[in-house]
């Protein structure tokens, strides 16, 4: 289907009963399930409004990552509650990218050690857990106590932030890299680089293909950045007490 044309002149935000709303001319933005689009954070509303105001002739919804994340939080299309989101997030640890090592080629194995060991060590120290890494096809053996610690830690986030966290984990294929971002230990660019380490290694060896490699790189950066920003804006003390975020 052809892209929708931009049908509005002005984008503005306003404060309603449930939170901040987005106005496209006189129309209020709605979610895909036709609910009123309301967000608990003013900064988030401004960033969403900017996405809508950035559309030129046609609306390219694949560029509107923050809008998409808000729609997911409001509609909850997969019908998951906090506990289910946390379980999905922590399950990723069993196949965490930075714990899954190769033995060959030797250069890649060494690159993984040099680039991934520090972030695994950081997570172990920060959360006081044992994680390790493995070259086994079954992946690392994560102790139950480690999983419990992360479950407990993630429970301190509200459901909007958890949607964001689970999203980042799914994009980066790593709980550890995602926590590195949430805890501001690494930048988005670094997290994406570490997530794509093997691709970067192959690109160094065989050459870069702009229309594929850079395309994927930019998309992953955009999604990881959107998810991280979303989590932080939904977790700010000015936002946290909001009605929308109560379980």
């Amino acid at each position, binding site marked *: 289907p052809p892209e929708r044309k931009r049908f509005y002149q002005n984008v503005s935000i306003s404060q309603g009963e449930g939170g901040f709303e987005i106005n496209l001319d006189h129309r209020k933005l709605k979610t895909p399930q036709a609910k009123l689009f309301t967000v608990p954070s003013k900064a988030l509303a401004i960033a969403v409004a900017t996405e809508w105001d950035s559309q030129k002739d046609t609306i390219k919804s694949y560029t509107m990552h923050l809008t998409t994340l808000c729609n997911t939080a409001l509609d909850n299309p997969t019908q998951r509650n906090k506990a289910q989101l946390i379980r999905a997030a922590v399950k990723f640890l069993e196949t965490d990218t930075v714990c899954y090592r190769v033995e060959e080629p030797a250069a890649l194995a060494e690159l993984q050690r040099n680039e991934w060991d520090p972030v695994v060590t950081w997570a172990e120290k920060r959360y006081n857990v044992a994680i390790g890494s493995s070259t086994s096809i079954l992946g690392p053996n994560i102790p139950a106590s480690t999983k419990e610690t992360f479950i407990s830690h993630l429970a301190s986030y509200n459901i909007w932030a958890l949607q964001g966290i689970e999203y980042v984990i799914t994009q980066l294929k790593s709980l550890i890299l995602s926590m590195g971002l949430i805890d501001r230990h*690494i930048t988005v660019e670094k997290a994406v680089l570490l997530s794509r380490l093997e691709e970067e290694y192959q690109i160094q060896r065989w050459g870069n293909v702009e229309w594929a490699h850079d*395309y994927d790189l930019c998309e992953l950066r955009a999604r990881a950045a959107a998810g991280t*920003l979303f989590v932080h804006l939904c977790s700010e003390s000015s936002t946290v007490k909001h009605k929308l975020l109560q379980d």
Partner: protein
Amino acid sequence: MAALGSPLRTLRGLLRELRHAGGRAGRPYREMPAYQYVLAAFRAHRVTSEKLCRAQQELHFQAATYLCLLRSVREHAALHQEYHGKGERSPEEVAGLVGFTLPQQPGGKG
């Protein structure tokens, strides 16, 4: 703490991206809510000096993340336009690529 570089550089980059992002002509970019919000936040926390306290570092990280988002979306859209924006070729064009022409079928397809 993430290696973020100079806060002033982040601020400049972010304001530049916002300037490019503003879709509608006629409205000066300085009036964009996001532009004003970012400037106000940096001024309030004075996140351009050398030594940063925790709140300043948090703001700087947020700004750097938003900058990454805007920049990556713009770059991705540009790549999409350049490589994937032209849609599919018609059957006539495809046939023409290898030197064929499609047969004329006045009665429609068999």
